[in-house]
Structures are given as structure tokens and as C-alpha cells.
């Protein structure tokens, strides 16, 4: 039963394309299911770009209110935050790759694009929103996925978000509730201006029965890599950047406090948005940095005890 999802029903997908149930409901798609393979490919590609934003396409299908991502492939495009629709540079590549995929039996069409935000979180910038709006105009159904490979390595868990934009001028009836994430000061304006123009979808993952079997057996090998990984040592620049950003936010918060009578009290508009006061946000950011550092140190201390306190 878990492998049934791997079958591509061309007729059913063609029928959906004709019916287009998403046209009348800007919030139609609510869920994303990503295959184990697609996730691995996207994260590895994102990390390989280092501090440069990279991008790729996702192939899959739809199932009710869910978009199912079966596979992903990298595009020869970098610096996706420098221009709208950066993928236009790779149209020829996309066509060639999709054709070869179809020949090899990968029948799914493109259902979205992914790109990386190294170190600054999973959200859509102004350029991303414009790109996605264009995609949703001409290539529906289409999804935008953002991966932060730096935070993935720093936190030890995959930092990923899936988004769809609202049509131009559309005002959603309810304020979208999103999980808090640290946004660097130099990106806060871009984040704040556009955060109402899109919503996040719930992400779940799936794998085949053979994937499950192989992943269980893989653990018998890569436990060594788990034990030998050192999160403290790989991300020094990112941590320094986070701390520096935190200090700047503190400076800003202090300037605000010096000029207000009730510093931690919310203004009526802030209370309406259920926003946290500035210092409370800084507190959360500093806690996150600390938790990651402490986790990294725990690993180092445990390994030191295991391997260095033994004497012949």
C-alpha cells in the first residue's frame, strides 16, 4: 500500500488539469508530501551551493488538496535572489531534462521549484513572491519550497518550508499562523513587506517499503557518521553571524526602549497582530543559538569521555 503512491495515473492527472479545482480557491492546496529521495536531493544540492542560493525543480502530481513531490532535480542557475524568475536562464535545460526523464519512465510533470536561503530561514522574499506568482499564473499547480542548508546543519534537523502565493490584491480572511523563525536584520524588511502575500503548507514525508528497509539497514553503517559529526566545528561563520545579528537587534531594541514609556507593552496594532515585543523576540533568538551550541558541545564532551578517557 505504501508503494501505491509511486504509480502515476496519467488519466487522473489530466482530468485534474481540466477541472482545475484550485482556480476558485486561493487556499486550495494545504498539504505537501515529499518523497525521501526528493528531500535528500534538495538538501544535498542546497548545501553544495554553500553561501550561494541555488535552485531546482520538483516533479510530482496532485491528490486532492495535497501536492505530492516525487523527485527533484538541480538547475544550472545560481543567485536566485538577484532576479525575478531566475529559472528562465535554464528553460532549455528544463525541457531537455524533462524529456530525458519521460523517456526513462519518470512521467510526472513539474509541480514546483525549490531554492536555498543559506543562513536566513525559510520564507519568500519579494523576488521569490514575484517568481511564484508568475509560476502560479502560467504553470499551475505549482509550489515553492525553500530550504536553509546552513540552519539544517546547525540545528541538526531539516529546515524547510513550502509556500503558495495568493493572487494579486487578494486579502486572506484569516491571518496565517506561522511558526516563529529568526530573520536577520538585513532581511527583516523584505520578509515583513511580503509575508502576507503567501501561506505555508503542511509538509509530510513518505518513503517506499524498499526505502524503509534500506534506511533501517543504512543505520547499521552511518551510525559512525552520527557519532563522528561535530556540529560545533562546521558552522563557525554562521554562528558568528547569528550572534552579531543578535547584538545589532539588541541595539535597536535598546534605542526603542529609551524612547518609549512602556517598552514591553504592545501598541494596539502590535497587540492586534499578536506580535511579541522586540526583547522577547531577541530572547527567543538567543535561546535558539544557545540550544544549538549546547547540543554541539554535548556531542563533543560525550565523545571526549568515550574515546579520550580510556587508557591501555
Amino acid at each position, binding site marked *: 500500500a505504501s*508503494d501505491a503512491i*509511486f*504509480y502515476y495515473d496519467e488519466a487522473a492527472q489530466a482530468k485534474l488539469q481540466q477541472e482545475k479545482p484550485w482556480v476558485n480557491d486561493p487556499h486550495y492546496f494545504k498539504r505537501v508530501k515529499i518523497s*525521501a*529521495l526528493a*528531500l*535528500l536531493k534538495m*538538501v*544535498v544540492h*542546497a548545501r553544495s551551493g554553500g553561501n550561494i542560493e541555488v535552485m531546482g525543480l520538483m516533479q510530482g502530481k496532485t491528490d486532492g488538496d495535497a501536492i505530492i513531490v516525487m*523527485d527533484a532535480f*538541480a538547475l*544550472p542557475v545560481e543567485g536566485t535572489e538577484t532576479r525575478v524568475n531566475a529559472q528562465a536562464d535554464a528553460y532549455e*535545460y528544463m525541457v*531537455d531534462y524533462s524529456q530525458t526523464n519521460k*523517456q*526513462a*519512465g*519518470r512521467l510526472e510533470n513539474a509541480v514546483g521549484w525549490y531554492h536555498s536561503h543559506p543562513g536566513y530561514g525559510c520564507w519568500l522574499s519579494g523576488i521569490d513572491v514575484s517568481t511564484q506568482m508568475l509560476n502560479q499564473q502560467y504553470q499551475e499547480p505549482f509550489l515553492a519550497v525553500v530550504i536553509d542548508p546552513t540552519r539544517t546543519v546547525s540545528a*541538526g*534537523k*531539516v529546515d*524547510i518550508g513550502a509556500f503558495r502565493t495568493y493572487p494579486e490584491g487578494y486579502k486572506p480572511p484569516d491571518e496565517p499562523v506561522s511558526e*516563529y523563525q529568526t530573520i536577520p536584520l538585513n532581511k527583516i524588511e523584505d520578509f515583513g513587506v511580503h509575508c502576507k502575500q503567501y501561506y505555508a503548507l503542511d509538509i509530510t514525508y513518505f518513503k*517506499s*517499503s*524498499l*526505502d524503509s528497509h*534500506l*534506511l533501517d*539497514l*543504512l*543505520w*547499521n*553503517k*552511518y*551510525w559512525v*557518521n*552520527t*557519532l563522528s559529526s561535530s*556540529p*560545533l566545528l*562546521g558552522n563557525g561563520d554562521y554562528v558568528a553571524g547569528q550572534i552579531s545579528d543578535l547584538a545589532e537587534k539588541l541595539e535597536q531594541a535598546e534605542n526603542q526602549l529609551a524612547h518609549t514609556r*512602556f*517598552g*514591553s*507593552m504592545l501598541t494596539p496594532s502590535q497587540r492586534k497582530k499578536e506580535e511579541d515585543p522586540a*526583547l522577547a523576540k*531577541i*530572547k527567543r533568538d538567543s*535561546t535558539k543559538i544557545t*540550544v544549538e*551550541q549546547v*547540543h554541539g558541545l554535548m*556531542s563533543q*564532551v560525550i565523545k*571526549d569521555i568515550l574515546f*579520550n578517557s*580510556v*587508557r591501555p
Partner: protein
Amino acid sequence: AASSSSGLTFKLHPLVILNISDHYTRVKSQAAQHHLATGNGGAGDLPPPRVYGCVIGVQRGRTVEIFNSFELLYDPSTHSLDRAFLEKKQELYKKVFPNFYILGWYSTGSEAQESDMHIHKALMDINENPVYVLLNPAINPAQKDLPVTIYESELHVIDGSPQLIFVRSSYTIETVEAERISVDHVAHLKPSDGGSAATQLAAHLTGIHSAIKMLNSRIRVLHEYLVAMQKGDIPCENSLLRQVSSLLRRLPAIESGKFQDDFLMEYNDTLLVTYLAMLTNCSSAMNELVDKINTAYDRHS
């Protein structure tokens, strides 16, 4: 032959294994549905399909690291892989992964077959010493080892004539940090949202605990084996004894002034970050308190 004598070290990334698995599952799923649709009986009657593809990566000296793979087409007329398709795919992959070269090919099945050598030889003009990665897709819950075999080819004289035969090569699983985290993520299907600090800590420590448990179980097996050797229950194996002795002499793993300095530096930096974060939390709490005091004792409101 049982083992290779080339001296090459093979490192295989989990992405390659999942790629092959996905390829196989998809082809099997399509074939099964087609079989059902044409009314030719149950999907269980179908023999497992064979899939083919290329493996790509880098070779640095004697180390061959297989990073990725892509699917290929089997050309039944030539009993080999579709060359034009391979070259097209290679061109596309070179644009995105310019540092990766074709290292060999993959297929699925329980063991290498004679016809596989034909495919293997055809690839020798691209890579003079290609590897053959074979995944056995049969799911056996009692299995402990990965059902992946890497073969090289060697020239052996058999019945007086030189022949290329497949020889097994050992390999290790290699991951980059991001890959390991993703594999862990899908293997244990962890939620990608934050969770509370306690949940995060539990997840982190559980991972380390599981890894140490694996290490512990292997040490116990070795220990019991050595005790049995000492008692004479099993014959003495000198090469194993030498390996164990060499391993023990490597402990402590790192013992130098430089390591101590760096380790304590990291330790103290983390303590400092914790201390500053605590002070930040106190500032925030203090600020809220001041506001409450101001509100409570404000003459104007």
C-alpha cells in the same frame, strides 16, 4: 571472484542507494498497474524488473567516492545501455555537477549475471575501470547487511584464456553532514517544526544514544569473540588479534596540548554564549517587570 585486489577504496553515498530504490519501486509500480489493467493476473506473478543507470562521483587517488546516479535506458537490440541517452544525460549532469564523472553503472538483482559483463565492457571507453553497483531489492526482514554489492572487473586467466570477471569490493557508507541529517530525518520521520526545547534535546540525545548503543554492541561482540578465542572455543585468528591490538593502541584517540586548548576553547565559548543568553533573558524579564511597575504606579492612568 570473492574479493578485489585493486586496492581501491570505495565510498558510497546514501543518495545513490535511495535513487536506485526509487527507480526500482517506480518501474515495478508502473509494471504492476499495467499488468492489472490488462487483466493478466496478480501483480505478484510478475518477476522483479531490472533497472539500469549510471553512477557518478569523483576519484581522488585510490579513493572512489560515488555521490549520485541517474537512470538509463536498456537497449534490448544491443543488450547494452542506450548510448545516445547516456551521453545526453551526462551532458545535462555535467552542467550542474561539473566535478562529477561517470564511475560506472548500477542495476538491480540478487547477483551479477553474465550478460552484465557486456554492459560493463561497453562502459570502458568512458571509464577504463568502471564499477558495478548491484542492489538486491528483495526485502528480507532478517537481513542485517545492506543488500548493495560493488563489483569491479579484473582480468583472470580461466581455462587458459584471459577473461574479465566481476570481483566484489568492499565499501563504506559516506555522508556529508546535510545528507546524514536528511537521511536521519526520513528514516525516523521527525517533524520539521521546532518543538519545545525538551523535545529538541530528547531528539538530539536519542540520536547520540542510538549511535553509542551500536558501538557498544559491536564492542561486546568483539569482546565475546576474543574471550572465546582465549578459552580455545574457537581457533585463534592472528589477523583479527592484530587489528584489535592496533585499535586499542590508538586510544586515547586524541591526546595533545593543541586538542585540549581547542576543546576547552569551544567549551568555554559555549558556556559564555549560555551565560550571555541567560543575561539577555533576564534583561527581557526585567524590562517586563519595569513596565508593570510603571503601569501599576503611573499617576496619569
